[in-house]
């Protein structure tokens, strides 16, 4: 590797890019900052253009995260992650012997990191192989950003109502009915009955619903139990459900009739 050290700084907050550049200028005046990126995508693009020897990557960036960008760069540069407070990430960095800096960046800590980097550059040791660790980390971060695991019950349904998309709280839903390609969501918009359409199949929605509140009563109908006003039985082993505050009548098929056995 050449004696001339080059670096890329990626952070979505401009003040923090400036600050790091200024701090590096004090601790490591010979280091040339060849690129500054505002997000992960830019970091990857600028890396491919300039091939800096060192990349300072903010973990939390719009679009591609710092970890995603690191995945792309791989062992072609020495990586230093920068983060304000990402408990999980910091833990993983420490375990994986990755270099990381905490914001606000302390001068002393930065000096340590710089001397480690210089050592590595001098011995022209290749960058640590981090592929697997980074893969795990980026999955973990993605999960954190979407608000945690999928195990939680569904709370909102994204639905098409006319020309707009609305988020319907699951507590407002009276029933769901599948209809050829779509699922119809019958819900209450501030108490008033309303209907909307979602593309998610009924079966998929049912899996995410609270079984204490919703019951499947027909191949194509799932109803909120509290929304039922009454159930009328027919002679031919079927029944129909009348929904509170609506004129709608829902079918109950033979397989689900046991739910409404007489007292």
């Amino acid at each position, binding site marked *: 590797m050449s004696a001339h050290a080059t670096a890329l700084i990626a952070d979505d907050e401009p003040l923090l890019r400036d600050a790091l550049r200024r701090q590096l200028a004090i601790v490591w005046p010979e280091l040339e900052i060849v690129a500054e990126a505002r997000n992960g995508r830019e970091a990857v693009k600028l890396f491919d253009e300039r091939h800096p020897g060192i990349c300072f990557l903010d973990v939390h960036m719009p679009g591609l995260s710092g970890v995603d960008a690191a995945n792309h760069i791989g062992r072609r540069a020495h990586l230093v992650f920068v983060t304000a407070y990402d408990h999980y990430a910091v833990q993983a960095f420490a375990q994986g012997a990755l270099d990381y800096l905490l914001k606000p960046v302390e001068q002393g800590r930065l000096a340590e990191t710089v001397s480690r980097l210089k050592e590595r550059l001098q011995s022209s040791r290749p960058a640590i192989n981090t592929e697997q660790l980074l893969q795990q980390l980026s999955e973990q971060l993605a999960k954190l950003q979407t608000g945690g695991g999928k195990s939680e019950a569904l709370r909102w349904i994204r639905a098409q109502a006319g020309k707009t998309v609305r988020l319907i709280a699951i507590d407002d839903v009276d029933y769901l009915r599948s209809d050829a390609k779509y699922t119809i969501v019958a819900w209450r918009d501030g108490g008033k009955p309303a209907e909307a359409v979602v593309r998610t199949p009924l079966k998929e929605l049912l899996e995410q619903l609270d079984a204490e509140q919703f019951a499947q009563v027909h191949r194509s109908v799932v109803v909120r*139990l509290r929304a039922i006003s009454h159930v009328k039985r027919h002679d031919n082993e079927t029944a129909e459900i009348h929904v509170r505050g609506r004129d709608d009548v829902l079918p109950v098929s033979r397989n689900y009739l046991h739910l409404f056995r007489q*007292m």
Partner: protein
Amino acid sequence: MSDLATAPGPAATLAKTARRLTVALTMSIAVGLLMLSVWNNSPSSLFLRTIILGLSATAAFGLFEVWPRGLPPWLQRWALQVVAIGVLMPVTTSLIYVLSTAQGAPPFWKDPSRLNGWTHLTFAAILLAPWTALAAIVRQKEAFARNQKLAFALERSELEREALDARLHLLQAQVAPHFLFNTLANVQALVDAGSPHAPVVLRSLTAYLRAVVPLLHEPAATIERELQIVRPYLELMQMRMPDRLQYAMNIDPAALQVRCPPTTLLTLVENAVRHGIDPSEEGGRIDIDIDRRGDRCVVRVTDTGAGLQPSADGLGTGLTTLRERLQLIFGDAAQLRVTSAAPRGVAVEVDMPAHT
């Protein structure tokens, strides 16, 4: 309560029937014992008759409890049950006497001793059976009311627990280390650079913390207080993302004193930043519109950011908990609506009663 919820299982039905039979038998035997002194026939024939009467009354009670399924509005079911039992009692005693009349013997009303027995039995049955039925109905209604009360109390405590959770969540989110350290890093950067902006930013951070920390202990805030948090918050965020965040506020002065759950507005704005602006490379604009229309107050936060994510739950817990808190305070009188904004982004609207 729906039909389904009140429909008891087979075990419950069995227990109910057993309980009724016990009451009927106890009453029948007690009446029999009381009537022994005036009875001029064998005691076993007396007990047999009172028990038959008791059981037939129980059967009638059970029958008219469910049949006919629909009743005219002027007829209460409990009245039907009581009247039916009252009518059934003389009919049953007469039937017992007609059927027990020996072959060739005169009808019971021509035999003074049998007529005397019939009169006593009928009198006792008409006197006691409808009252017992009435007592049973009252007990049943009370038990139902108790059940309902319990169910309501349970629901209420569940909501209260959720509100507590929500407040805890707020505490975590509002004084979130990520937000604080990132902001401090920016302040540090400005100070290091000797920027004239440093004191301004520090002032915003102080204002934000001073407004948000006490609010976490209060049950209610006003729109005005909310703005005291949201203004410095947006100032800080704009300082951090000057090229990606613009915002504008359009506040109706008449709405300033309207009360709302603490951090209502902050939750909406934070949601717009976190899920709209922050994930978008180009960022966007946040518009805050607060209007008072008569006795309603509408708070609307629109962003032109990343928009609704493909995963339905991508909203995070902020809006969900806000919705729960609104429900707890206003019930159905408040609504939280989430729609996609044109051409990009999300609009979240809270429509609530304008209490001051």
